[in-house]
Each structure stands twice: as C-alpha cells, then as structure tokens.
C-alpha cells in the first residue's frame, strides 16, 4: 500500500517533470547530438523526480540530486578501466561506484541504501513504461 502510494506520487511527479523536460527539450528534434541531449534531459528529469520522491533522508537520493544539480561534464570519460575481479571487496567497490553517493558510506549503510535504490529504480522503470505506453496508445 505504501508502495503503491509512493508509485502514484512518483507517477505524478515524473509525468509533470517529464512534461517540463519535453517542453524544454523540443528545441530541435532533428540532429542526433541534440537528440542525445534531449533524451539525457528526460533521463535527468526522471532521476530527479525519483530522488525527490525518495526524499532527502535517503543518502542516495541526496547524492543523486547533488550530482544532477552540480553536474561535472565529461566525468564518465575520465573513468579508468579496471581489470575484472570477482572478490567480494571489489564487488562492494563496484556497488559503491554504482550507487549515487556510495563512496562515503560504510558497508551496512551501502547495502541498506542499495535496497531502497533498487526499489525506487524498479518503480521508476514501471512508471516510465506506463507513460510511454500511454503516449504510444494515444498516438496510434
């Protein structure tokens, strides 16, 4: 029940924010560069709404909002390649890099925040699927 409530909140927030992202993203739909930027804007709106729904109390949501607001450019290009490893410490490090703000957590908090993050991400995916299906059915 709490899950459905949060999903509805997420749906409202996501749809309004996506509308905003869409109106601001329709500068030019033709060039592929701008296409990419546009879809990134939608993605940022989606993540931002997800983080806002999760609330400021969650560490990953705080980190995500911070990262979205003060976005360093080309950070992903500077990431080093690491050799594949399978020990559990390396996996924890991988998880740290995957979770927003995970670099500063201890392992307990990391796992707890990961559980919440997975929950929110799956809800987000469901909501975005519902929105796209809705629009597709309206178009067709």
């Amino acid at each position: 029940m709490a899950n459905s409530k949060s999903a509805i909140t997420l749906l409202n927030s996501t749809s309004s924010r996506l509308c905003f992202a869409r109106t601001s993203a329709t500068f030019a739909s033709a060039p592929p560069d701008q296409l990419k930027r546009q879809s990134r804007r939608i993605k940022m709106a989606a993540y931002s709404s997800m983080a806002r729904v999760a609330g400021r109390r969650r560490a990953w949501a705080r980190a995500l909002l911070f990262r979205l607001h003060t976005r360093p450019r080309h950070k992903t290009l500077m990431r080093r390649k690491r050799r594949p490893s399978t020990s559990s410490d390396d996996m924890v490090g991988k998880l740290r890099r995957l979770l927003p703000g995970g670099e500063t957590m201890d392992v307990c908090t990391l796992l707890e925040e990961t559980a919440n993050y997975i929950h929110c991400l799956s809800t987000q995916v469901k909501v975005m699927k519902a929105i796209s299906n809705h629009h597709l059915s309206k178009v067709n």
Partner: protein
Amino acid sequence: MDPPLVNESSFSAANPSSYSLASIWPFGGDQGGSVLGLRMANLAQNLGGFRECSTNRDGSMEESTVTEQSGGGRKRKDVSSEDESSRMVSTSSANQLSNSNDKRMKVVESRDENGGIKAEVDPNSSDGKKLAEQSPKPEPPKDYIHVRARRGQATDSHSLAERARREKISERMKILQDLVPGCNKVIGKALVLDEIINYIQSLQRQVEFLSMKLEAVNSRMNITPGIEGFTVKNIVNQPYDAAGILYGSQAARDYTQGAQTEWLHMQIGGGFERTS
C-alpha cells in the same frame, strides 16, 4: 545420604585448602560470603542439612571444603549436570583422597570457573561482579556472550561489535537477495553482489532506454497537429536566433541552417505551414 559424615570429613581434612580458596576467591569477606551462601542455597537441596549454616562465612567455608572433599561422587552428580567445568570438579574430586596439592589447586581453579559460569545461571548472585572478569561490557545479552565463550569464541567488545556488524550485513544481504529476482539461488557473497550490481545496471539502462523512447514518442507527438504543438512552436522560435548569434561561425551557421531546414521539413510533413 548422610550429612554429618561429610561434615566431619570436611572439617578434618581440608581446612588449609579452604583458606587458599578464600584467598584465591576475588571478593571481600561478607560479599563473598553472601555469594557463596546463595550458591550454597543452591547446593543445599543436595546436601540437605547444610541449609542452616549457609548464610555466613562459616557456611561458605564448610561448603567449599565439601566441594573439595567429597569422596562419594553422587552428591556432585547433581551439581555437575549444570555444566562441564563442575563435571571436571567431580572427576578430579573422585581421586581427591590422595591429598596431592596440585590436585587440590586444580579443584580450586575449576571451582572458580564453576562459580563464574554459575553466576549467569543464578540471577541473584550475578550483580556484575563475576561477569566483570569475563566481559567488560554489560550491555550485550549475557547468556549470548557466555554461549559464545563456552564455544571458545572471543568475548571482548571489539569482536562482539564486529560480530554484530557482520550479522547486520548478512541480514541486509538477505533483504537484497529477496529484492533482486533470481538472486536466491546464488551462493556466495561475491556472486550475490555481482547479481545485485548487474540488476542495478540493467535498471539504469532501462531508465536510459525508456527516456530515449519517451523522447521518440514525444517527437512523434510533436509532428501530429495539436494545440500543444503550436504553443511549443511559438516558444521554440527564439532559441534558433539565439543559437545563430551565439555560434557566429560559418560551420555553426550551417549546422543551424541544416537543422532549421530539417525542422521545417518535419513541420511541413506534420502540416505546420502557417507557422513556417
């Protein structure tokens, strides 16, 4: 059973050892006496006649001498059913009659350990004094510590905290395993974490894909005529000029020009002749 016989033998044989016991025993006089007296009250069901003199120091001394002396091991059997160390007392007190000193010291030591463990069994006598020898922290559950201690595991505060942390982590891992589909069958922490990481990555990619899809849907919706299309078009008109001014160079102008022609083509295809 016959209490007077035991009483006699205890007073005859084992008085010096009882003094050594009192010196080894880490308590003050009346405090130790009361503790021993309470333990004596436990023993008094077996020993029967000792209940009267079990409250003061004399009673405790008598009781401890009985502990060492008892040639007939059947009185010890009832006590030794509580734990292993007192069973060691009974086995060593079976050949106590040889009166060797090292044996007696061994009995005293095991007796001491027996009292320390018994303190957590008896709630009256365990007012933190004997537990202070074994665990410096009183806040974790005591029987838990003693179960661990009897198994031979560490009981200091650091390892206890570490153990609690590890249990917390494994509990969280279990929650995560329930959350990630197909993760229940995977055995091993690293593999479980790998599954979780893959799942998060797939979810993030799904969000990315869905945002691209929504963008595509959105662009298709802009082509179809509607009220929103006009308003969006009116908003959209100015950034082109801004971009043309901003870039300034020929290449950028070509770029924007190409973009504009394509845009116009799209608008014409959508039926936006008025706005162009």
